[in-house]
């Protein structure tokens, strides 16, 4: 690799020729502030916060996009640079809704941090402010343009990472906003609510729909039996809300905190992940043995389901009919659990703590009910749980580890835990399907070839003398690539796992914010996944079908996998959705639209 030598703040640096000044400075241990920059996603030099002085250059240059060259002499901390950065942030702040004290991102905002770091004490520009409307019509995502700084991180995440393109810059000049087409609500756009735009947003212009108060109200109501369940990926992220390093596994502390918050029962969605494997695994076996629709595609990720419904309706029959694990859990709590514990299901309120914003919309789908009751009554993201713990003034870091409630739905296996990482559902399914097809117990359950963060992972296994071809995609861009190959006949598979977010649930849209600065060095997908594989490895039971309470659930209640009762409670259906459907009298153009 060709290298160049340059001087930054009187330090000589040798770096590859392909580096930007920002990268070179980082290499030399020099910290240049950034705001719109998001590694590999948004490298556009829009905010002018990373300006540096280059000797001989006409003007200050944006270091995030300016390439290095031989002999360059750069100053990152001259008076000129400091003043320019300050002015630029002051200009951004002049049209920003500065309600920091009551803002969702208070003390967790990249704009707030940069203002503090640059020493901004007043906004000298008294100007017009753009008038905006908060879009909170969807169940998942709130868009508040009064906070938006037009950095483009969400736009490029949606357009280039997910390759969906719900959000873009609309209008021009001072009137510019980031919005869906025709400035529609996110609820009326073919948004899958993956929430990756929220994760990318440096401020609170995009955030989840807050359901914390709803949950507090139910906890405070003595007539209501509030059962909470936590998805596997939450334990890999929650610690970050309290300053723990990325990828710290906090299962025990999380359970302690949930009990202190006042939930009547604390369960792990992993139980239902095991149940999903039983249902989905047998569905797959059924499809293979009876000539059903193949490849079968997993249905745990509601973002992926919405993506399929909007963009690949031809694959709807390929989707497993299984509800996602937390929905199954809800359905079982309101039937089996209610029956066994003699609780009126109408008085049970099920809360799911999820790493996901799309689950909020999923739980409100009309299909997701049992005997007219919602499977799940409220979904909180990992971030919202973090907020509840802070509101309750629980010292999270000091908590002793506690255990999930153990009755009826308390057991879980390692197979359930790894659902939270890309490839995990597939691996969990193989651990069970392989034993069924081989007809014997299999010792090695680590399918390492399907772990990791490659865009598309493929494998071919021989199980019970049969070849089973599998593939895994995560993030909708990779999903589209994989589905196009299946559609064209280029590839044939029996079983495909698709997750809506790159990395799987560990990097879902409901997980704690990680600043752009940290993202320059850390692949969060890898770090958080480690926590899950670590938990899987220490568990005694690692195959879903060995979960004793799952066995009991079938013996006492469901019969066998894919039974009539199981279908009634645990399976659902999906339907094609039209993108931007016509609304009557919406258009004044005189056409038929």
């Amino acid at each position: 690799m060709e290298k160049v030598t340059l001087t930054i703040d009187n330090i000589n640096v040798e770096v590859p020729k392909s580096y930007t000044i920002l990268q070179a400075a980082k290499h030399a241990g020099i910290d240049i502030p950034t705001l719109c920059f998001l590694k590999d996603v948004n490298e556009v030099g829009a905010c002018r916060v990373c300006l540096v002085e280059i000797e001989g250059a006409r003007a200050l240059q944006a270091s995030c996009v300016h390439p290095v060259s031989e002999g360059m002499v750069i100053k990152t901390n001259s008076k000129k640079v400091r003043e320019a950065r300050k002015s630029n942030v002051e200009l951004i702040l002049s049209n920003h809704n500065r309600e920091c004290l009551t803002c969702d991102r208070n003390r967790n905002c990249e704009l707030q941090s940069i203002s503090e770091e640059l020493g901004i004490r007043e906004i000298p520009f008294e100007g017009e402010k753009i008038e905006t409307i908060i879009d909170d019509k969807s169940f998942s995502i709130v868009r508040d343009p009064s906070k938006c700084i037009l950095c483009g991180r969400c736009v490029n995440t949606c357009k280039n990472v997910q390759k969906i393109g719900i959000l873009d810059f609309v209008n021009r000049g001072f009137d510019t906003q980031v919005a869906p087409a025709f400035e529609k609500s996110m609820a009326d756009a073919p948004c899958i609510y993956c929430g990756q735009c929220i994760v990318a947003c440096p401020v609170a212009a995009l955030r989840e729909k807050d359901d914390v108060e709803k949950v507090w109200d139910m906890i405070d109501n003595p007539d209501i039996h509030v059962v909470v369940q936590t998805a596997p990926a939450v334990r890999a992220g929650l610690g970050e809300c309290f300053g723990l390093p990325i990828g710290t596994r906090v299962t025990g502390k999380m359970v302690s905190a949930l009990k202190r918050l006042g939930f009547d029962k604390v369960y792990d969605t992993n139980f239902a992940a095991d149940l999903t494997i039983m249902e989905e695994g047998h569905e797959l076996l059924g499809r293979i043995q009876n000539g059903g629709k193949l490849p079968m595609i997993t249905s745990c990720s509601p973002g992926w389901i919405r993506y399929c419904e909007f963009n690949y309706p031809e694959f709807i029959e390929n989707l497993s009919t299984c509800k996602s694990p937390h929905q199954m859990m809800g359905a079982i709590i309101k039937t089996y659990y209610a029956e066994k514990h003699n609780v009126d299901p109408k008085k049970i309120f099920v809360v799911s703590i999820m790493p996901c914003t799309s689950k909020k919309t999923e739980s409100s789908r009309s299909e997701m009910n049992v005997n007219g009751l919602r499977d799940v009554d409220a979904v909180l993201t990992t971030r919202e749980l973090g907020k509840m713990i802070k509101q309750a003034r629980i010292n999270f870091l000091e908590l002793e580890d506690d255990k999930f409630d153990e009755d009826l739905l308390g057991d879980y296996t390692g197979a359930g835990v790894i659902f939270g990482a890309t490839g995990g559902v597939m691996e969990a399914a193989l651990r069970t399907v392989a034993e069924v097809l081989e007809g014997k117990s299999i010792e090695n359950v680590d399918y390492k070839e399907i772990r990791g963060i490659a865009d598309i992972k493929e494998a071919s296994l021989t199980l019970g003398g049969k070849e089973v071809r599998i593939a895994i995609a995560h993030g909708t861009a990779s999903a589209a690539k994989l589905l196009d190959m299946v559609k064209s006949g280029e590839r044939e598979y029996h079983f495909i796992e698709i997750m809506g977010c790159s990395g799987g649930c560990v990097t879902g849209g409901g997980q704690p914010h990680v600043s752009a600065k940290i993202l320059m060095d850390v692949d969060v997908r890898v770090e958080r996944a480690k926590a899950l594989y670590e938990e899987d490895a220490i568990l005694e039971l690692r195959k879903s079908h060995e979960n004793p309470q799952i066995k009991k659930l079938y013996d006492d209640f469901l019969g066998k996998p894919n039974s009539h009762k199981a279908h009634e409670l645990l399976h659902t259906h999906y339907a094609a959705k039209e993108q931007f459907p016509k609304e009557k009298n919406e258009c004044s153009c005189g056409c038929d639209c």
Partner: protein
Amino acid sequence: MAKNTFTAENFTKLDQVIQKYADKKGALIPVLNDAQKIFGCLPMEIQKKISEGLNIALAEIYGVVTFYSQFSLEPKGEYTIGVCLGTACYVKGAQKIIDRIKKEISIGVGETSPNGKFTLEATRCIGACGLAPVLTVNEDVYGRLVEGDVPGILEKY
């Protein structure tokens, strides 16, 4: 009312335009230009067709349409009158010209006459400063105007 441009024939024309540019880089602006000419405006149904045809997200197309003033979401009149309000034209009395047009056809800037005949627009410099003050009616250019020229020009259409 403006005449209906949303005919099967025009949709066929749009399909041909899309096919001509499909898979080409930088296709969006030429397609939008042609579509604007065919339909006189770019409402959602037209943008949706272009989105599907070129495989570009609707939000991106809408972003481009709302960025450039040459594109319009709503139908324009049969004739678009553009009065240049660039510096030279303005100094030479363009405001009087625009006020006279408003009076003659009873519409404001950015509006379309109820019979669908005229749309009035105030434009930035169109680069014909030598002819200031200047106005355009569709592709026709009228320069060195005085207020009294306005009724005569409008009568031609």
